[in-house]
């Protein structure tokens, strides 16, 4: 291409860019034409200047900037033709945010090593407003504070370029902040949000927690809301659960929002957002946030699992983690002398939270084979399970092949009860109250049964709570031998079809009885909020 043709092409592409008709592949072409070519760059700037000139000449919207309207000093700031009055502290925070957000380094000239707007201070000796309880890939603005997980926070301005942090206010509220964000903690019960996405959990105790935005104070009257403030000052609030009151800066209440309702605010103009607010803090965003929360839960669960794996009484521990989709051998993280399981038919699937693996038992042939040799006086069986349907008279969680004396059968009845059977002269069955109702299908629940031959006691737990306790006399030593998770080798017994319809993402057998406290703790550590 000749120089003239090149420049003409630059003019054409630049012109299209300003008209909003440039295609994505032409973006690349224009950039390539400008790169390293001063004349082409000059031409682009000519076209851009011409565009602005024409706009100014014809009195359009793009070109004219009448000085006054864009300036910060009068407290009356005109934006889009509407006059708004910003509270002064908010304006100062905006300025601080902007300076920290980018220009601070530039502004620190050699002769003027000007102090950062938010002076760095000793984080170990806080003013005491909140604590940074979690952080996921946080990038803090240069020149500002760089708190780490576990640091206490005082009355600080924080500028988060990207990433997520969770702040637990001493007043009880928990706020997950998603960057880019700029906010100021003002008291244990209040913060100012200048920019960013804030998801707030407010327990009963912390009712009244407030986020101050340019247009209103959002006061939580209980549980959960999401609030987004853009760099342009626009904001949206959406109540996820409970109730939020919106007050004007002068303290006058002008709106109370209930769950599923929201409001968009732009320079004093308000628009209701109904219909569950799906168009507000979008679902992806919420999901992203909950995943992050899950990641933290996941770490907590891992710590609990590691402790169990190290416990010599843990015979079998299937955590279903770290396995390839094609793996058919199920790693046993329990005692070293206990063999791994064998996956037959069951497919890998998602567990309690994104990133947690599970096995799905769907077809009547799906199962995991395992073998636990030995005789036991005490046992604990525990599983995280998501039942999709109680299709059979009995659905297997763990059943030994056949039902020889002393063997343990752990299953669910079609009524949704946990049933523990111990084979003896006559079978000893203990049944819990109903633990799986129709509303529980498709939900992850934690089931535990403890068997103590020495005290002749069987206790059932669901989600950490006792749901049945029975005295069972006449138990022999407890045994498993060859057994199956999610299915049964009937060996000629009645009701051979006991396949499970659902998923399991954690299963364990311990040769001791977990105390009610331990069961509750086990549930807590693995629960997906």
């Amino acid at each position, binding site marked *: 291409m000749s120089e003239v043709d090149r420049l003409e092409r630059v*003019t054409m592409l630049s012109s299209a860019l300003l008209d*909003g008709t440039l295609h994505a592949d032409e973006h690349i072409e224009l950039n390539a034409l400008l790169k390293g070519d001063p004349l082409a760059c000059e031409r682009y700037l000519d*076209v851009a200047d*011409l565009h602005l000139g024409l706009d100014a000449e014809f009195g*359009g919207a793009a070109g004219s900037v009448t000085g006054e309207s864009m300036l910060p000093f009068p407290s009356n700031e005109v934006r889009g033709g509407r006059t708004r009055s910003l509270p002064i502290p908010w304006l100062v925070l905006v300025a601080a945010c*902007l300076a920290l957000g980018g220009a601070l380094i530039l*502004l620190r000239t050699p002769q003027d090593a000007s102090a950062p707007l938010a002076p760095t201070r000793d984080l170990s000796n806080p003013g005491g407003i909140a604590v940074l309880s979690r952080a996921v890939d946080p990038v803090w603005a240069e020149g500002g504070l760089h708190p780490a997980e576990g640091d206490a926070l005082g009355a600080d301005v924080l500028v988060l370029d990207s990433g997520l942090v969770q702040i637990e206010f001493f007043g009880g509220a928990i706020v997950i902040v998603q960057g880019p964000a700029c906010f100021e903690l003002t008291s244990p019960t209040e913060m100012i949000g200048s920019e960013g996405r804030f998801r707030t959990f407010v327990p009963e105790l912390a009712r009244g927690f407030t986020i101050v935005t340019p247009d209103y104070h959002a006061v939580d009257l209980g549980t959960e809301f999401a609030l987004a403030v853009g760099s342009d000052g626009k904001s949206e609030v959406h109540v996820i659960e409970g109730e939020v009151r919106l007050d004007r800066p002068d303290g006058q209440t002008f709106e109370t929002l209930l769950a599923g309702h929201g409001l968009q605010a732009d320079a004093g103009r308000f628009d209701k957002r109904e219909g569950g607010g799906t168009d507000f803090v979008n679902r992806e965003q919420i999901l992203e946030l909950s995943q992050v929360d899950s990641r933290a839960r996941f770490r907590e669960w891992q710590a609990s699992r590691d402790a169990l794996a190290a416990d010599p009484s843990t015979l079998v521990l299937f955590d279903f983690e770290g396995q390839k989709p094609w793996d058919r051998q199920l790693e046993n993280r329990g005692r070293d002398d206990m063999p791994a399981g064998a996956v037959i038919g069951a497919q890998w699937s998602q567990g309690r939270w994104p990133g947690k693996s599970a096995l799905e038992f769907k077809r009547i042939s799906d199962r995991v084979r395992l073998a636990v040799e030995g005789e036991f006086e005490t046992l604990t069986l525990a599983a995280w399970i998501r039942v999709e349907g109680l299709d059979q008279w009995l659905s297997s969680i763990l059943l030994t092949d056949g039902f020889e004396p002393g063997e343990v059968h752990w299953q669910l009845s079609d009524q949704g009860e946990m049933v523990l059977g111990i084979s003896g002269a006559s079978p000893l069955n203990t049944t819990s109250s109903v633990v799986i109702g129709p509303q529980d299908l498709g939900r992850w629940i934690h089931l535990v049964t403890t068997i103590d031959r020495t005290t002749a006691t069987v206790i059932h737990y669901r989600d950490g709570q006792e749901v049945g306790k029975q005295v069972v006399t006449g138990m022999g030593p407890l045994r498993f031998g060859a057994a199956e998770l999610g299915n049964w080798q009937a060996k000629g017994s009645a009701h051979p079809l006991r396949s499970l319809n659902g998923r399991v993402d954690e299963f364990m057998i311990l040769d001791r009885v977990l105390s009610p406290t331990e069961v509750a703790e086990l549930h807590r550590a693995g629960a997906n909020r």
Partner: protein
Amino acid sequence: MERDSETFVQLLTGAQQNVHAFIFSLCHDSASAKDILQETNLTLWRKAEDFTEGTNFVAWACRVAYFHVLNHRRRQSREQLVFDEEVLDYLAERQEMRLESGDHRLEALQRCLTKLPEAQRELLERRYAAGASVQTMAVAAGKSEGALSQALFRIRTTLQQCIEKQMGTEAAR
């Protein structure tokens, strides 16, 4: 310099057109340019004390604005970005110099517009005075976007050549 001093207010007010042109040429979007200008103004005002009287205000303001442009870029998706940082950097440098030199493009443009055929003037009027997007104009005129974009491109080329001639004569005077 005192941020509340009259001189600073005057400097800031007087620089608006130039700073806006600087920002617009880098972000090529009217709405974003105004947002960035507003942000830049706040920073300039907040950091007024860093400005030394007698030095070039536009140059200082452009440097502040550039950081806001970069900041704005970080929030955009990849598809929205046209220039890479190398090109952007060069454009910023060049545009700052052009603005500092204070050339008289606007006067030249005014003279050139008077020479434009009526039909072309009307097209510009619809595009700029009415603020119609090319898409809307195309629908209204029953033409394709491409055809309309092409027509605008031709008018801009004509005007650009005229402006260069005008400025050339000016320089030669």
